[in-house]
């Protein structure tokens, strides 16, 4: 294919990605090395604020941004190098924790806490998603044809449902006096408070993720199972391979590209998990990297947002994803070289 034709085909897609992803990404990259601040002035302000019966007026020194002639806030932008990254990573506190012999304290720094949970979350859910997806696919493939349609339909539900709603539907079963918690309480006759227990919240968040992503893995694997070479299977049977060996040496290798595909997608999505924190209100117990970025960007009442730290945190998240993706990417590269 000539370059011009290729460009014509790919052009619109690349244009959209450049405008809406690459340019913002570039600006995030730049902003992570910059700090933009308003020029601050301190002035005495008399402000009167409403009470129930009468006003209270106070005179206070307030910090206010300077406004220039055109009515805009005057700002300065400084290059700060890696300062925003340092603010995020807080190596001084990390070293202090290590030299005091209390490495557990590292996990009280937001970034490391988020990283610890995000990594655990990603790596624990990965085998569960692949395993459960494969198990369902095999079981469905094994089921009578007449019920397959319905089973596939039910299995897909957790995947298609709006994530916020899915998370809430599970949250209501467990939080407070949710019916599952109440049932467990009667059964074990103890008082259970899921949301008060970090480990329980963590488990619940993982459960939700596996619940909602396993169907995707399932449907991909199930499609893959339809194309398993029957001749190979039959010759394996003739060779006396057991059921387990057939699974291990024929089916799994056939599905291997799909397993890599699922793993790739899942690693990416789990590493930037976000809905779980919001859905399960877990910020006191567990936070993820994307939630940390989001939190930096949420303005407070006074309109402040930490754009620089958010940018740094986003860049670190990206770097993390690229590192996690390296092994599967190397494989893709080899495939590419093999084809062309």
């Amino acid at each position: 294919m000539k370059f011009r034709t290729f460009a014509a085909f790919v052009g619109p897609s690349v244009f959209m990605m450049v405008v809406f992803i690459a340019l913002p990404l570039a600006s995030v990259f730049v902003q992570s090395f910059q700090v933009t601040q308003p020029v601050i002035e301190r002035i005495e302000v008399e402000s009167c604020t409403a009470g129930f019966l009468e006003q209270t007026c106070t005179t206070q020194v307030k910090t206010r941004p300077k406004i220039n002639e055109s009515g805009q806030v005057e700002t300065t932008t400084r290059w700060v190098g890696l300062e925003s990254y340092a603010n995020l990573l807080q190596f001084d506190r990390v070293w202090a924790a290590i030299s005091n012999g209390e490495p557990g304290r590292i996990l009280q720094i937001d970034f490391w806490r988020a990283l610890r949970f995000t990594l655990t979350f990603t790596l624990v859910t990965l085998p569960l998603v692949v395993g459960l997806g494969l198990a369902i696919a095999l079981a469905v493939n094994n089921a009578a044809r007449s019920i397959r349609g319905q089973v596939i339909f039910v299995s897909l539900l957790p995947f298609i449902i709006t994530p916020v709603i899915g998370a809430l539907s599970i949250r209501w079963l467990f939080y407070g006096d949710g019916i599952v918690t109440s049932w467990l309480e009667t059964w074990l006759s103890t008082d259970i408070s899921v949301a008060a227990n970090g480990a329980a919240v963590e488990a619940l968040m993982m459960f939700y993720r596996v619940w909602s992503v396993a169907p995707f893995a399932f449907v991909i694997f199930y499609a893959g199972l339809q194309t398993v070479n029957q001749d190979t299977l039959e010759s394996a049977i003739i060779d006396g391979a057991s059921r387990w060996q057939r699974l291990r040496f024929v089916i799994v290798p056939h599905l291997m590209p799909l397993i890599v595909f699922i793993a790739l997608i899942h690693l990416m999505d789990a590493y930037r998990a976000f809905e779980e924190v919001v859905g399960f209100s877990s910020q006191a117990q567990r936070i993820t990297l994307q939630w940390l970025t989001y939190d930096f960007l949420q303005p407070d009442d006074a309109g402040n947002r930490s754009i620089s730290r958010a940018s740094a945190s986003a860049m670190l998240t990206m770097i993390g994803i690229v590192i996690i993706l390296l092994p599967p990417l190397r494989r893709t590269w080899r495939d590419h070289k093999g084809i062309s």
Partner: protein
Amino acid sequence: MATPKAMRQPASLRFGSAAFLTLWCLIAAFPLFWILVMSFKSPADAFDANPLAVIFGPRTIAAGKGLSVIDLVLGLAVLWYAVRFAFTRLPQMVRAFTAPGLVILGWLVGCLGYAVVFIVLFFGLLPVVLDALNAIAGPLGQPVIGLTAEHYRAVWVGNEFYRNFINSLIVTGGVVTVSLTVGTLAGYGLARSGSNLAFWLLIAALIFRALPHSVLVAGYLPVFINSAEILRPILGDAAPTLYGQPLAVIAVLVAINQPFTIWMLRSFFQSIPVELDEAARVDGCTHLQAFRRVIMPVMWPGVITTGLFSFLLGYNDFLVTSLLLDAQNQTMVPAIAGYFNRETTTTDQAEAIAAAVSITAPLFLLVMVFQRQIVSGLTAGAVKG
């Protein structure tokens, strides 16, 4: 075809596999089933700790909203026949009454007509008949299960949820159409080009996909709000304010979804033999003509599957739509999230559940209709690489 002996499964394996599937289906469906039950109860019942109270809804009955045994039996029977009809007679009728070229139109008319008839029968005629029956049936006519549709009425009529529904349709429709048009071309180009540039584009797309959305979205807001000012030098007074425009949100969602779309479609196109379009090119077609004449007719399974994923993304999106749309153009998901902020009441939450079920219903239908295509589309190629 007789199953070879070695392929036949021992009873224990069959039983185990069936038990596992049952358990999975239970886990998969239960949370959703439960919110469906909750959505029909009074707020006090819906959040009760006792599951039986949630199912039977004593306080809902006390408020005079309940179903008797007769209601249940007749209602379920009507529902059952309605579903049966939709899957058997309706397709037949559509086929019988429409000209071959107008199948889509036929389906549209058929579905609309079906919906109207169903609503009139189920919500108009049935309650009248049941009221009359309950009045003369004695104990069978007493309500046994609390059930109220008041939350649905509050959501759809009182809160004008249909506005959000229409907005969701616009955004989702736009996302699917644009995403597929742009993505199909790119996917084809990438599949047929073995160049390093193509490879690096794919890798770049993969990394783009990994970017946390919250960063992107927060970056759009100031630009979108000030776009009229920014674009004025180029476009003059016609420069639009992008904030609040469904079109702008569609563009953003399409871009966010492009990486996944082009990866899916590329591997799908790779599974279509190159010989096909090469033959067309030998006959004197350009690449674009070859694409239109030879590839387009065979690409639909893959495109439908990819389209479904685009649909899910557009329909379920929260981050982008909540921030970049104003209230007039608000879609359903952010509208629901609004129920759960600091200033809500238990009734609001019960209504939110009804709204959540309403959101889920179209997804249900979609998967029901396209389920076979998802699997066959994936089987046909999208899963091969």
